[in-house]
């Protein structure tokens, strides 16, 4: 982590120095996006979660996602057990860009699929914040975040990729692909006597994932927006 910061921080300062003018645009854009997100005070969504982690063999699960401003988020599987990546709280976008205590830096444009996006880097002003750096890719036409990369001190790096549909007006995605860091899973030695069934270890992680990366994909079926969510669910 410290190693990574050594690289990132000088790079950020170079940006600040060179492109002071576009910084305003970046801030304005973030504000606009925030305004969209701000329309949602709370929601209760239902959807499906698919997890892809090397050591975790779990089926797709039906989940409920509860959100309440400013940053409460809970993913629940009512019918069974789900492994929810801890960093998944950051699928709550307002967590990334709201609060306003950051420095927004314009990092140019990029393309996701066929859509042209603005790349903006967000640096928290609080040196002790868990988030070290967030990079957001914004669809300017619809004022939604298509992709966000976050580097944290404690929980590694995340990446979010959003696909929008019906709820685009609220900045709520139909699908989120959440990529995160995992550690190797090791069972404590000697607690199990396992049956060696001779089956080869199947490689189940897609090529796109690096070693020690996991992926969770949430597909939202419906949202109930601003109808209130009791605090007890969190």
């Amino acid at each position, binding site marked *: 982590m410290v190693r990574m910061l050594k690289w990132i921080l000088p790079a950020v300062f170079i940006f600040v120095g060179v492109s002071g003018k576009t910084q305003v645009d970046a801030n304005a854009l973030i504000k606009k996006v925030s305004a969209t997100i701000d329309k949602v005070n709370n929601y209760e969504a239902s959807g499906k979660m698919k997890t892809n982690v090397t050591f975790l*063999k779990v089926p797709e699960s039906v989940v409920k996602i509860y959100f309440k401003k400013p940053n409460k988020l809970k993913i629940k599987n009512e019918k*069974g057990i789900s*492994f*929810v990546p801890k960093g998944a709280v950051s699928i709550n976008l307002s967590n990334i860009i709201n609060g306003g205590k950051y420095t927004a830096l314009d990092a140019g444009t990029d393309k996701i699929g066929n859509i042209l996006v603005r790349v903006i880097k967000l640096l928290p002003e609080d040196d002790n914040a868990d988030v070290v750096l967030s990079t957001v890719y914004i669809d300017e036409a619809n004022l939604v975040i298509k992709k966000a990369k976050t580097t944290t001190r404690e929980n590694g790096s995340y990446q979010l990729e959003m696909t929008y549909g019906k709820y685009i007006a609220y900045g709520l995605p139909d699908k989120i692909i959440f990529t995160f860091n995992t550690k190797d899973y090791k069972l404590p030695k000697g607690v199990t006597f*396992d049956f060696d069934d001779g089956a080869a270890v199947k490689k*189940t992680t897609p090529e796109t994932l690096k070693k020690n990366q996991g992926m969770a994909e949430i597909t939202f079926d419906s949202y109930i927006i601003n109808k209130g969510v009791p605090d007890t669910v969190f």
Partner: protein
Amino acid sequence: MLNLLRIELFKISRRPRTYIAFAAIAAIVFIFQFAFKADGESYMNLMLQSVKDTFEFEKVRAINGYFMCYIILNTLLIQVPILVALIAADSISGEANMGTLRLLISKPISRTQLILVKFAAATIFTILLLLWMAITSLVFSLLIFGADDMLIFRSKGDESQILLITKDDVIWRYLAAFAYATVALTVIAALSLFLSIFAENSIGPIIATVCIVIVCTIISNINVPIIDKNVKPFLFTSYLVGWKGFFYIATTDEGVPIKGSIENWTAIRNSLLILLLHIGILVAASVIVFRKKDILS
């Protein structure tokens, strides 16, 4: 033959030592259930130590009846051979010790019949023991902890895995696992019976059976390639844990478990055949040795 079996079961049912096994199982199971009811979270934390920072999940739901039964079986099926040996190793040696063997042999029953009946009785005892285990560890656990999705912690080669089996996909696996365990433990019964022919009190064959099981289990669990390839396939203890195979659910290429599937049925089937072969050889050897034996007790 059926008449003889009835007599044999009557004898077993009247022996106090028979019930030691049932009491021991109940005691172990209840201690497990109590411990997990009180502090199952610590166990979960231990198992998930290396990933507890990455994921959150509902531990209370994970400690459910299905999970408990698996944990209990995992521990208990290592001890149960001792309980099976307690009865099976007494089959012939106990009669010799009590002085009733010479009476039995001087009755108009062939020795082959006698061995087969003794084996059948030991097998029935084993089945009842497993049935009792199923009741205490599965039924009672479900009553105490409820049913939910089941987590399997598994180490496979150098990797560890967590498998999740949805709750509607569990019961048949337990039925199959208990059936498999019956076969596995019947090997122990056959081994004990065989050893009991050579002794005139039951302590010797009980200890011999337990020693063989322990030594082979230890060797089965040494993870050295040379032993993996050259020794393990020939040890019956390597196949005793095969019941777990029913809980190794197959996954898609994306790592998603396929409901109703088993990762490697062929391996389980082969294990079963190997165990059955052991039973066949041990019972046949028992018959051959016993037919030739001079009864001097």
